[in-house]
């Protein structure tokens, strides 16, 4: 056991003790606590919890590496994963909060007054959250495996046990405060290496301002090497793929059940607005730093590692070459490692860079703890979504309406344990790279929930037949395009599987609108409820008139 192992291990154990401690302290007792933390979380902290929920293994571990390898084309992830918060906060979050249901399937089921729509929405929630969680579990497996120098599969299993434990016993209340702690850990872990590298390379403690210089310099280095410039647009895909991916990630953000459910934990529409703003500020800290992280990593690799003698490479290279994610072969046999002879997987850039830049054992351990916080916090939120879709929307609302609160809570806990185990089983042999799996989850949310929620809130004429058609068509088109593009090589305008949401959403909007118009309008009561979402809580729409409550009640 070397020093690095002991330091990393201690930091991870200390942070885990903190998360589990908070979860146990807040052990949920009542059902409403379990799902939405009693709707009393202040916007600033709710913003941090949304941030931790949001920033997954894909953001923390995968994104900077993706940008480093794709250059400008990787920035679709930066704009897509932040720009979606405008759709969410303007079009959906406050209105869904006023409607006041626990979960997304519950909103769809009640707004459209259809158990069929409710069950389809619950199944979509389970499919989306499950797909997403496979990416998180395989991410945590890579981190734990690398760190403890054990097989990544064993690492995945350790992650599964941890998630099942605190999601099942803490509930959302435990998770909300746990996630505030996780946000703090992961943002510190991400910013420290970026700031240190900025000091090393540019003598500035503000990486966001200083890395532009390196981006320009790398363009020159690339020209000398005769490869396309780092910042040249559309070198790894068409412009349409860039736009489709950005659209898919934005609308997926606004349709992800585990993110939307966060907005039910605030008190009012006003608090929902502020939570969205705080959330993007906290998320933005990491997203603004990721391209800097990418630029520094690439610059160090280009100037310090490329050009070294092949027999004299630094010690860190060996452990990463052993994982199979890094290749350094002296292709032309001249004894020197050229830039083109260095092949690095995008999933290890964030984890390996502190070692490459020689930032010391403490920083390396901290980054590992941050990566674990990112993977586990998101997986925790996903598991709550899956369990509430099953225990609340399917089991309680449709299947056994007479079940006791105790039974429902136990169904919720068992569904978390089973979903985690099953996702872990698939994560042992993941069907794609972490970012790819996560992008599929976004495409599915874009093709199903985004149209159903936007029309549900903004168009009172949309009815149950319309939403059922929209959800099914959107799901089929999105899944069909993902499979056709990934396995069949079928593409339109160069748009690949990760941009599938643009077709799913278009088809779902059309299906919902056409079928709604072809069938009877929803009941007067439902149309009035939709009109009511236009106004703040205090204004109530009733019988074609708007009423203002002055004493906190809606009695006339």
């Amino acid at each position, binding site marked *: 056991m070397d020093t690095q192992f002991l330091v990393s291990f201690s930091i991870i154990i200390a942070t885990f003790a903190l998360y589990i401690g908070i979860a146990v302290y807040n052990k949920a007792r009542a059902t409403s606590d379990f799902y939405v933390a009693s709707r009393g979380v202040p916007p600033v902290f709710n913003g941090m919890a949304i941030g931790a929920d949001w920033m997954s293994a894909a953001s923390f571990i995968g994104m900077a590496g993706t940008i480093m390898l794709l250059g400008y084309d990787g920035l679709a992830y930066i*704009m897509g994963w932040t720009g979606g918060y405008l759709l969410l906060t*303007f079009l959906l979050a406050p209105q869904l909060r006023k409607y006041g249901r626990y979960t997304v399937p519950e909103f769809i089921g009640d707004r459209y007054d259809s158990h069929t729509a409710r069950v389809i929405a619950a199944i979509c929630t389970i499919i989306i959250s499950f797909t997403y969680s496979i990416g998180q579990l395989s991410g945590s497996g890579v981190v734990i495996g690398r760190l403890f120098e054990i097989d990544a599969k064993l690492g995945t299993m350790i992650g599964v046990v941890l998630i099942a434990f605190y999601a099942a016993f803490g509930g959302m209340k435990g998770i909300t405060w746990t996630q505030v702690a996780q946000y703090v850990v992961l943002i510190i872990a991400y910013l420290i290496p970026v700031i240190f590298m900025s000091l090393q390379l540019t003598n500035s403690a503000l990486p966001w301002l200083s890395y*532009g210089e390196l981006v320009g310099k790398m363009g020159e280095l690339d020209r000398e090497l005769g490869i396309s410039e780092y910042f040249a647009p559309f070198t790894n895909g068409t412009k349409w793929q860039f736009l489709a991916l950005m659209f898919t990630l934005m609308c997926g953000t606004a349709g992800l059940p585990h993110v939307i459910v966060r907005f039910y934990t605030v008190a009012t529409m006003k608090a929902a607005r502020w939570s969205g703003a705080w959330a993007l500020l906290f998320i933005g800290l990491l997203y*603004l730093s990721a391209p800097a992280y990418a630029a520094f990593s690439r610059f160090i690799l280009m100037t310090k590692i490329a050009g070294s003698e092949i027999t004299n490479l630094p010690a860190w290279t060996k452990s990463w070459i052993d994982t199979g994610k890094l290749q350094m072969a002296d292709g032309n046999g001249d004894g020197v490692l050229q830039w083109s002879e260095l092949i690095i997987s995008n999933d290890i850039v964030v984890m390996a860079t502190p070692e490459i830049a020689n930032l010391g054992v403490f920083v390396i351990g901290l980054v590992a703890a941050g990566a674990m916080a990112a993977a586990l916090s998101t997986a925790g939120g996903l598991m709550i979504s899956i369990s509430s879709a099953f225990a609340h929307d399917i089991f309680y609302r449709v299947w056994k309406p007479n079940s006791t609160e105790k039974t429902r809570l136990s169904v919720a806990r068992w569904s978390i344990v089973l979903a985690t185990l099953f996702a872990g089983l698939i994560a042992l042999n993941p069907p794609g790279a972490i970012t790819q799996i996560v992008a599929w989850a976004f495409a599915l949310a874009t093709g199903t929930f985004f149209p159903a929620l936007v029309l549900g809130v903004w168009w009172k004429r949309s009815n149950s037949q319309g939403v059922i058609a929209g959800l099914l068509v959107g799901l089929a088109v999105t899944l069909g395009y993902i499979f056709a593009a990934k396995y069949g090589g079928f593409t339109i305008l160069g748009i690949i599987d990760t941009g599938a949401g643009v077709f799913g959403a278009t088809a779902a909007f059309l299906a919902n609108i056409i079928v709604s118009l072809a069938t009877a309008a929803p009941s007067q009561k439902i149309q009035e409820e939709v009109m009511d979402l236009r106004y703040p809580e205090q204004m109530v729409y009733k019988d074609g008139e708007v*009423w203002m409550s002055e004493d*906190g009640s809606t009695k006339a």
Partner: protein
Amino acid sequence: MKKIEKAVADAYFREKNRYMVIYFIIWFIVSYGVVLLAEPLSELTLMGGFPFHYFMGAQGAVVTFIILLFVNAKVGDMIDKKYGIDEAQNIKLSAGKSVDH
């Protein structure tokens, strides 16, 4: 409860939507607009080396999004105030509404 003029309620809704449309136009220009014009915009450089399209993708768009969300939150509060909405009443009302099943 006191009845309010439908025209007043509609004005509230329209005013909020008008701002929202402005936010979405800015949102579209800084993200989709810059991507559509990425090639010509890459000729411009700023802050010691950033090509303009890269700067917008990596920082400009994100900062604009954050500012728009805070402006929306603040402007939303001001519109609520203008129409006499009291947040304390909202809290009471939404607390009563969440347990209706």
